[in-house]
């Protein structure tokens, strides 16, 4: 069994580069250019509609929560508001960070900035970490966005359903960004020209939190924090639940998204919150395709993909036992079967890092 070192400066990071893994070409399903152009086409209309519903619902729910405060009757409204604040912001951050949600660039930028604030990510650093996540998805020591590191620490995964570890990590980082720009680790993937932006964005975020905390202290009430800040914790569960499913229990150090990503059919409310990122293999294979076209893309390439999980519950039933097994055996992973119509996995592509993914470890 091999021990994984997720540090961006560690031996696994070095090995991934030296072995050629980071330079290897990812597998793509063949899609005719005309079809792909049609799928990639941008449009403002779906995202404007969704954004009006999204922010409109947030204002309404927070308004009712404030009106009913401090009655217990306000709780359901805070819970719903929290999910929009602490979970739907993750998918807005993601889609607008790619620049695919809207056709008009400033609309992507505005929603991206707001979402970054709500999800507690520095907008000027996470854009870059996400680029790395796409180039080197689940390469140990290279991908800074690995949600389930092996061996998994189950207690930590559970704490994060309430955003606890994320917030604990965020506070010193954003303060440090505000004082001195990116951390040494962030400097490995944020280009030098962007370091000033990292600091400026952090100063804005810190100022808003300081004003909110000041208001809470001044009024002697946590109500301001119920609106800004705390929903990142009490509403985080949905994005953690869907986020774990993206890659949890699947292979690492491979260059085929069919092996390391998971597509899950979900109910329409979760799909609205998650902005269709349940089509996760499709998104990783073709990041140019906007969220609203992912269901169509799925239809075009599903013959070449493992069958999607049919529900969130079914996907958890597949993933959770694998995560538990990885506690004892970190080489263990779920190997998903391909339909007979699919191009087979290129086994020789998936053994760049010796000892990392022996086929015997697969289910």
């Amino acid at each position: 069994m091999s021990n994984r070192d997720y540090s961006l400066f560690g031996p696994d990071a070095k090995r991934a580069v030296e072995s050629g893994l980071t330079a290897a070409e990812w597998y793509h399903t063949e899609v005719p250019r005309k079809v792909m152009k049609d799928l990639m086409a941008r449009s403002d209309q779906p995202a404007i509609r969704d954004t009006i519903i999204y922010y409109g619902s947030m204002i309404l729910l927070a308004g009712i929560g404030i009106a009913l405060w401090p009655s217990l009757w306000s709780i359901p409204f805070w819970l719903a508001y929290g999910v929009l604040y602490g979970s739907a912001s993750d998918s807005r951050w993601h889609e607008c960070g790619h620049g695919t949600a809207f056709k008009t660039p400033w609309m992507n930028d505005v929603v991206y900035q707001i979402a970054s604030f709500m999800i507690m990510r520095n907008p000027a650093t996470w854009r870059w970490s996400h680029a790395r996540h796409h180039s080197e998805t689940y390469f140990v020591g290279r991908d800074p966005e690995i949600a389930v590191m092996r061996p998994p620490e189950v207690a930590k995964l559970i704490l994060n359903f309430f955003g606890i570890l994320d917030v604990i990590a965020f506070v010193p980082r954003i303060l440090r960004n505000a004082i001195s720009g990116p951390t040494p680790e962030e400097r490995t993937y944020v280009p030098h020209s962007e370091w000033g932006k990292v600091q400026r964005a952090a100063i804005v975020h810190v100022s808003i939190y300081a004003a909110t905390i000041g208001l809470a202290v001044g009024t002697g009430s946590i109500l301001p924090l119920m609106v800004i800040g705390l929903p990142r914790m009490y509403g985080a569960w949905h994005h953690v639940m869907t986020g774990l499913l993206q890659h949890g229990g699947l292979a690492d150090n491979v260059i085929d998204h069919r092996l390391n990503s998971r597509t899950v059919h979900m109910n329409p409310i979760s799909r609205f919150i998650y902005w269709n990122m349940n089509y996760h293999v499709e998104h990783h294979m073709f990041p140019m395709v906007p969220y609203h076209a992912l269901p169509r893309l799925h239809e075009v390439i599903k013959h070449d993909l493992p069958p999607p999980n049919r529900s969130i519950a079914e996907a958890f039933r597949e993933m959770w036992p694998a995560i538990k097994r990885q506690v004892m055996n970190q080489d263990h992973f779920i190997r998903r079967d391909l339909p007979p119509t699919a191009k087979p996995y290129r086994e020789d592509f998936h053994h760049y890092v010796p000892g990392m993914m022996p086929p015997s470890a697969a289910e």
Partner: protein
Amino acid sequence: MPWIDACATTDIDEEDLIRWDHAGKTFAIYHSPDGEFFATAGLCTHENVHLCDGLVMGNLVECPKHNGQFDYRTGEAMRAPVCVNLRTFPVKVEGDRVFVEVA
């Protein structure tokens, strides 16, 4: 500097691009929505991905890997994560052929 016959004008749809390889180098040739033709280096300056799988929107080309954007007329990097401009090459159309002046 030689002008090389690269492709026919009809080989590229309007508002689209193709990959063109020549003398061990790879290029991208664009057909703009105004009917003009342009050429740039074929690989994104961020992580050397072929731009030919990307998307042309007006005067921009978007890289298929991380959605970085360039103005393909000037090569200017327009959207993160691309920071380094793309090299451009002169293009002329004679009849129904597109010529690129490769340096």
